[in-house]
């Protein structure tokens, strides 16, 4: 099986500072990976580089075997969901936030039904009433799950998560773990949560932009 995500000797600079140096790793479809390291180690930069938000100075990032270019970045953005520490919902109410991507040309014809909305909320242990809540009034953990729900509604297969379990209580965390136990979903995450890291197939330690260590769990 060929990797779905591959970093091949990738170096990234921003404002004349090296933020990633010669990074190489690969992720097969369905694999879960966690990046960890101190603040400023470059963990989030790995995710941002894959999303095409950082200019690559040298090396190549591959997604589904295709090098990252201005054309392929659209495919990456359409196939992946990014959920940050403080996810931006981008709409006033939770319902509008969930339906936001379906205003865009790319998803206009795939607007979910009410039943689909309810099902995804239930799956993530969110109450139906949250749909009418203001985005600014819900907790950080709820925001993260709404952002995740949006990814699920878009049927995304690749998830880029930045400390997603940090604001979740035990039950919500289990619901999130349950979602990602799906072997079809590939996850590249930034995490310091030992419980999540244990579930990952690959755990990568970064230090000041350099890949320090790769640990592989279970099947290679």
């Amino acid at each position, binding site marked *: 099986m060929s990797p779905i995500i591959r970093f091949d000797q990738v170096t990234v600079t921003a*404002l004349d500072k090296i933020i990633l140096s010669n990074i190489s790793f690969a992720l097969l479809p369905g694999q879960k990976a966690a990046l960890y390291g101190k603040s400023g180690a470059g963990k989030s930069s790995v995710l941002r580089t894959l999303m095409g*938000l950082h200019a690559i100075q040298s090396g190549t990032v591959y997604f589904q075997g295709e090098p990252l270019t201005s054309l392929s970045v659209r495919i990456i*953005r*359409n196939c992946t*969901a*990014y959920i940050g520490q403080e996810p931006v919902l981008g709409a006033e109410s939770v319902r509008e936030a969930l339906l936001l*991507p379906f205003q*865009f*040309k790319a998803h206009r014809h795939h607007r979910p039904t009410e039943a689909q909305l309810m099902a995804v909320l239930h799956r993530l242990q969110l109450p139906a009433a949250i749909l009418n809540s203001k985005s600014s009034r819900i907790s950080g953990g709820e925001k993260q799950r709404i952002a995740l729900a949006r990814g699920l509604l878009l049927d995304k297969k690749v998830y880029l998560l930045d400390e997603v379990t940090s604001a979740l209580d035990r039950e919500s965390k289990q619901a999130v773990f349950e979602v990602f136990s799906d072997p079809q979903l590939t996850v590249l995450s930034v995490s310091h949560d030992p419980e999540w890291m244990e579930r990952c197939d690959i755990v990568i330690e970064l230090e000041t932009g350099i890949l320090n260590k790769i640990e592989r769990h279970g099947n290679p």
Partner: protein
Amino acid sequence: METLDIALPQMAILYALCLIPWLLLWLIGLRLSRDLVIGIVRMTIQLSLVGIYLKALFNLNDPWLNGLWILVMLIVADLSILRRAGVKARYFALATFTAIGSSILFSTGYLVALVIQPAHFYEARYVVPLAGMILGNCLQGNVIALERFYSALRKNENEYATFLMLGATRREAVRPYFRDGVKAAINPTLASMATMGVVSLPGMMTGQILGGSEPWLAVKYQIAIMICIFTSSTIATIINLKLSLNIAFNEFDVLKDEVFARR
């Protein structure tokens, strides 16, 4: 009806009025003497030169010369917009020039050729001051639009990136900031139209009345100029922001740092 001249001694009395704000500013601890003097001297010299130039321009009434004058105004406005909006002229000069140039040509042309209909469409007495007034307001609108749009984008970088990751194209992802920028640009004109005549007597109308026009004629000109200012500002800001989208982003839809002036 003749307008009364302001003789030189009276002009001196007028300048003396500035001593009051200067004194008040000084009393509250604002040391703005230098800025005040520079402002007054520059205004006097610039307007005197314009007076001399306009007199010659009106006497000659040559379409090419009028066009050249408008071109100079457009270039100065273009550079002024970009400097005040905090973006580099090297990247945006052509886009802004295209936006303000096309909107000024359209709205001034519309006003002069279809509404006022002087003997010659290039009549300097109409074309030059009207284009100048419309351009002056357009300038403000474009500064606000560019500044508001790009500062909102930089401030909400994460939100913009989220929209991209949710499948938005660049144009779809910038839409909320685009709308805010255009709204901020046209709001002052809208507010000014809504209160015109109640809160203030507009400058052009006052000028015409002082110049001896009938109030009713002055009112019609004021309405004409306001509609053209609004039309022109809207067209110019939309074209300007749209064109700038092809300049300010790299091929990955990320804002380019180098297009912004360092502050």
